């Protein structure tokens, strides 16, 4: 398919990574997303919270172009990259072959090597996925997404299956990678603290639309957390200090 190599982005100009207007997505009669509007700038980290079944993942899949939409418009300059909850590495390919999957350039191996080095696995180019821990596999999945130099990076609960310590390390890594590559990011998550830790902007989805928007102030306070939890229907009476 077509090779998409990003031109060196003039970082001063803010351009949207994706603009969604009046999106409608339904399975038969059941409307999951209704008149949803969303705009994510390049370099902006947006977290999407919401109860199970509120349509978060449906929105992400629509943005990824995996599912057809029934109305509205999704304007994305290029095909987005996606990291799922499962690593989805091809077990029969070495790590560098996995990372360079779909990359049609002559120096695919070098680029894969650079991407793997960026996630701290630069010495494992020819290793097999089965020799990786859960966190390492997810790091390879991140490298595979970023090697495509996406303008929009979609993360579908990518840390949900990891243990707490690994998750914190992954947060640091993702923060650094996003600061480096500056894609627009949409992180779908259940974890309020994860959203607070990573996102510039937090959205809460309800009844198929964005119900609440919280732009993170400079200081992250527990007030924000309590408010977010309240929006999600969780009342924290003894709020932790």
């Amino acid at each position, binding site marked *: *398919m077509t090779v998409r190599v990003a031109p060196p982005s003039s970082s001063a100009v803010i351009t949207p990574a994706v603009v969604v207007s009046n999106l409608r997505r339904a399975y038969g009669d059941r409307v999951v997303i209704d008149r949803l509007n969303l705009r994510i700038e390049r370099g902006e980290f947006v977290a999407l919270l919401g109860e199970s079944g509120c349509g978060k993942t449906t929105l992400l899949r629509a943005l*990824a172009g*995996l599912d057809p939409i029934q109305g509205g418009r999704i304007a994305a300059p290029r095909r987005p990259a*996606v990291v799922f909850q499962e690593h989805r590495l*091809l077990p*029969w390919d070495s790590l560098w072959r996995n990372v360079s*999957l779909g990359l049609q350039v002559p120096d695919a191996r070098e680029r894969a090597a650079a991407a793997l080095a960026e996630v701290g696995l630069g010495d494992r180019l020819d290793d097999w*996925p089965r020799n990786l821990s859960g966190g390492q596999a997810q790091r390879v999945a991140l490298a595979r997404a970023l090697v495509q130099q996406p303008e929009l990076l979609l993360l579908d609960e990518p840390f949900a299956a990891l243990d707490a310590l690994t998750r914190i390390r992954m947060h640091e890594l993702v923060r650094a990678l996003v600061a480096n590559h500056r894609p627009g990011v949409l992180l779908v998550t259940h974890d309020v603290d994860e959203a607070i830790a990573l996102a510039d902007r937090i959205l809460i989805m309800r009844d198929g639309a964005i119900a609440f928007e919280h732009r993170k102030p400079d200081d992250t306070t527990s007030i924000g957390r309590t408010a977010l939890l309240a929006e999600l229907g969780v009342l924290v009476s003894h709020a932790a200090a």
Partner: protein
Amino acid sequence: MSNIDQAVAPANLDQVQTANGQASAERGSTLLLGKRSLLLLLSWLAPAALVMSWEVLARAGWISPQVLPAPSKVIATAIRLATTDSLPNDLWVSLLRAACGFAIGGSIGFVLGILVGFSRIAEAAIDRSVQMIRAIPFLAVLPLVIVWLGVGEAEKIFLVALGVTFPIYINTTLGIRQVDPKLIELGRIQGLGSLELIRRIVLPGALPSILTGVRYALATAWLALVVAETIGAQSGIGFLAMDAREFLRTDVIVLTIVIYALIGVAADAIARLLERRLLAWHPNYGGGR
């Protein structure tokens, strides 16, 4: 020969045990190793003892040579036939038949399997018919095949091909169906075209199942060949056996049976080697590393 084996083997075992006792501080592992090699020895001693008693009984005249010749007689016959007679030629003819039939049947099964695995339309058009034909024990069509093709090379190759087609077909479609749809979705996200998707994701994913089909097919190919060659042949291992039957040469008949068995073992070994090579990535085949 067997006497020498028995004399040497226990001595070896002693050596293994004492060497381990001296070298290793871990008594547990030493005992385990000793026990394991003992069991291994036993597993080989048992069949050796069987062959030995067969030899003794045959030599003592308890078993008539016309019923079952002594193993030593079979070996002598093998050496004689291999050097003076047509055994290499017959072996070659049989192998060639099996290979031709396998190539034809395997190709048909693979191509049909790919079509049905990928296309719902092809599945609707092809699958039911194939499943119906598969319900027939393929050896049952032999009389019909003889009417069609006579008793010649074509008939034998046809029968082998028929036996090979179905295991390959079924395991190819099964393998393609079992490829994780999440990986295919990922391929689309990474921007793979249809051909790339098949090459990079679908076929590698289906390969374990396809190779299982190859192993089954090797077994049926061999069975088909034995039957086809027994029915009527002017050359080949089966011909050797039927020819020997007319002269009550049980030593030659037993030899052909042994050859069939050895080739079956060799074919399976090749299939296993293929699996280890091609599925090195697979935890169940590549050997944990």
